[in-house]
């Protein structure tokens, strides 16, 4: 049994961190605010070259063939640095395309020339091999050519052109782009049933990883501030009101990351209770990310409430991810339906 990152995994995290800090700094979110796309395309291409989109893609398709725990660590790191762009949907789409035999699309996603956004069904409608129908939120679909849709039954890749009358909306998270479209009939380019590869399960674990990464990042942010900010002649971190808030954040983010890695290992080893643990991870990590981001704003005082500070960016990203691949209440309902874990 081992749930600690190996040396190899620590190297992976360090390489991703280096790239994100130098090529995708958080400041870029504010710099591109108001522009059609949130993505810096040059940086995206470099990230693709570094293999950030193909870490879990099997080697036979040109990926690194790494296991889900590696991917969980990568997506936690991406979220910790508020990386912009549809990393998760593009890498999942490469997996879908590969198993549907579209090697051309796999190649183009992998080299960064094709980006795949996400469509989330809001309200009534349907997603299946025969087509899709309903009103969809389009997340990070500005300037992309393909869209991924994920359900418990399977995952679909649809051309963006299939979505009529795309209306751009003001996104609550300045680091993503949001639009909406109502589809009466659209063709599905590729459909991968969950029985062949449970994309939804992977998406649940990897979004939990992102949330755990956010929870972790804001814990660090608040703690560093509490060490440096001086009031009443002493760093505010000496006061229990602040110290205890930071301690609670540390526990929540540790619980979120531990459960996410536990779930990742359950999924990759095909354990019976893998779904239970993935749903538990999403639940724990959503709450940790949102609560910790809120606490971080409080620890920063007035500065935490400004647009200029990063704290709100983490909070907003946490809310976005918590609504992807299953509403929080649906995740809870699914979790309660599971048998007891082994």
């Amino acid at each position, binding site marked *: *049994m*081992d*749930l*600690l*990152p*190996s040396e190899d*995994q620590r190297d992976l995290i360090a390489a991703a961190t280096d790239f994100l800090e130098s090529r995708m700094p958080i400041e870029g979110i504010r710099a591109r605010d108001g522009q059609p796309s949130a993505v810096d395309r040059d940086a995206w291409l470099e990230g693709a070259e570094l293999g950030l989109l193909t870490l879990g893609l099997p080697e036979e398709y040109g990926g690194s063939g790494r*296991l889900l*725990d590696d991917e969980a660590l990568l997506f936690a790191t991406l979220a910790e640095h508020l990386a912009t762009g549809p990393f998760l949907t593009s890498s999942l789409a490469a997996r879908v395309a590969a198993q549907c035999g579209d090697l051309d699309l796999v190649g183009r996603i992998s080299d960064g020339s094709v980006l795949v956004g996400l469509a989330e069904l809001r309200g009534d409608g349907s997603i299946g091999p025969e087509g899709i129908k309903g009103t969809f939120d389009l997340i990070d679909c500005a300037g992309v050519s393909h869209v991924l849709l994920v359900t418990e039954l399977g995952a679909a890749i649809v051309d963006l052109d299939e979505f009529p009358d795309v209306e751009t909306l003001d996104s609550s998270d300045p680091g993503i782009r949001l639009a909406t479209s109502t589809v009466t009939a659209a063709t599905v380019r590729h459909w991968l049933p969950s029985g062949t590869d449970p994309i939804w399960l992977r998406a649940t674990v990897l979004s939990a990883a992102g949330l755990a990464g956010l929870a972790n990042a804001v*814990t660090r942010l608040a*703690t560093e501030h*509490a*060490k440096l900010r001086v009031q009443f002649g*002493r*760093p505010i*971190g*000496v006061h*229990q009101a*602040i*110290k*205890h808030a*930071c*301690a*609670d954040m*540390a*526990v929540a983010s*540790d*619980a*979120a990351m*531990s*459960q996410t*890695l*536990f779930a*990742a*290992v*359950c999924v990759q*080893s095909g*354990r019976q209770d893998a779904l*239970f*643990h993935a*749903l*538990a*991870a999403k*639940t*724990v990590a959503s*709450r940790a990310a949102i609560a910790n981001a809120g606490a971080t704003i409080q620890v920063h005082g007035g500065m935490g409430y400004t647009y200029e500070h990063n704290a709100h960016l983490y909070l907003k990203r946490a809310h976005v991810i918590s609504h992807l691949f299953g509403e929080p*209440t649906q995740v*809870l*309902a699914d*979790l*309660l339906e599971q048998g*007891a*874990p082994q």
Partner: protein
Amino acid sequence: MDLDFTAEQVEFREQVLTWLTEHKPRESRPRDDAGIREYDLAWQRTQWEGGWAGIAWPTEYGGGGLTLLQQLIWYEEYAAQGLPGIDACFVGLNHAGPTVMLRGNEEQKSFHLPRILKGDVIWCQGFSEPEAGSDLASLRTKAVIDGDHLVVNGQKIWTSSANCADFQELLVRTDNTGSKHDGITWVIADMHTPGIDIRPIKTMEGGAEFCEVFYDDVRIPLSNVVGEINQGWSVAMSTLSFERGTAFTANQVRLAKVVEDLIDFSRDHVGPDGRRPAIADDEIARRLARSRASVASLRAMTYVGICHTMKSDTPGPRGSMLKLHYADLCKEIAALAMDIVGADGLRNSSRWDPMGWVGNYFYSFSQSIGGGTSEIQRNIIGERVLGLPR
């Protein structure tokens, strides 16, 4: 990363399961002091005869010398059987025993350690005082040297199992002149010594599992001092981490069982609308699901903690994170149970009763106080995990 157990570990789990199934106590734990003493000691003796006493103790002291993962397996299976905690034997096995092992002299080791393992004796802890709770080092129960004895006067409080204990790990003040951490001595008190007066304290849950202990010119031989005179603080701290390692696994497995029991209970029990089962209520259903998720995360944290301990050999301040998370969850789940029970919560129950949700709820308040309050755990996490200033 992996969650795999080796073939040997799987086989070990089988052995544990077989042994526990055959030897676990059949009758439920009595409620009276004499009954509890007899029951806990008999179960300890059974474990010793089966070769399972002191699984975390080194073999040179007669323990099982099990690896961390074997201990984890033992506690998982132990709790899964619904067996009670080690309760009255806890201090001897997980605190006083290990302290004697690390800091005691040969006579102390050879006299006390086998008795603890064999289930001959019960130990209690004499640390807290009315004026020294979280600020333990300010303790003032006084001991003066008189010939070859210490003469002890003062008072201890919150002493679990004092009314059925044979020995006590006792912290006394032997010097007042230096800093408060200096001048403390760790000594073994025979609880049958004249001058010791024990008064049980009834808890809000109704039981009397802890006591006040008064010392009036109690004479303790100097040969009972463990470590040096005035070095008691470091002696006491040397084993604080012992109880935060794998032993915690049992609590966490037990709490997971509580959640599953509560889910079953809420399928049969009428909910807040007076008609449908409680689980049909959206709010209750969501809280149950969140409890499941949180308890799963506690287990994952425990596993991660054990992985850390395997690499670094000491559990470190991560133990405080587990204890804090566990205490919060105990209280949250117990409060949820009260909401599910609804007006039936007017009927009192004991935590030892099957589905004793009311007693369990009252008991849950102790979880964030005993063994170091949650506030102290947050200080430890803030300072030693996050590096915040003192």
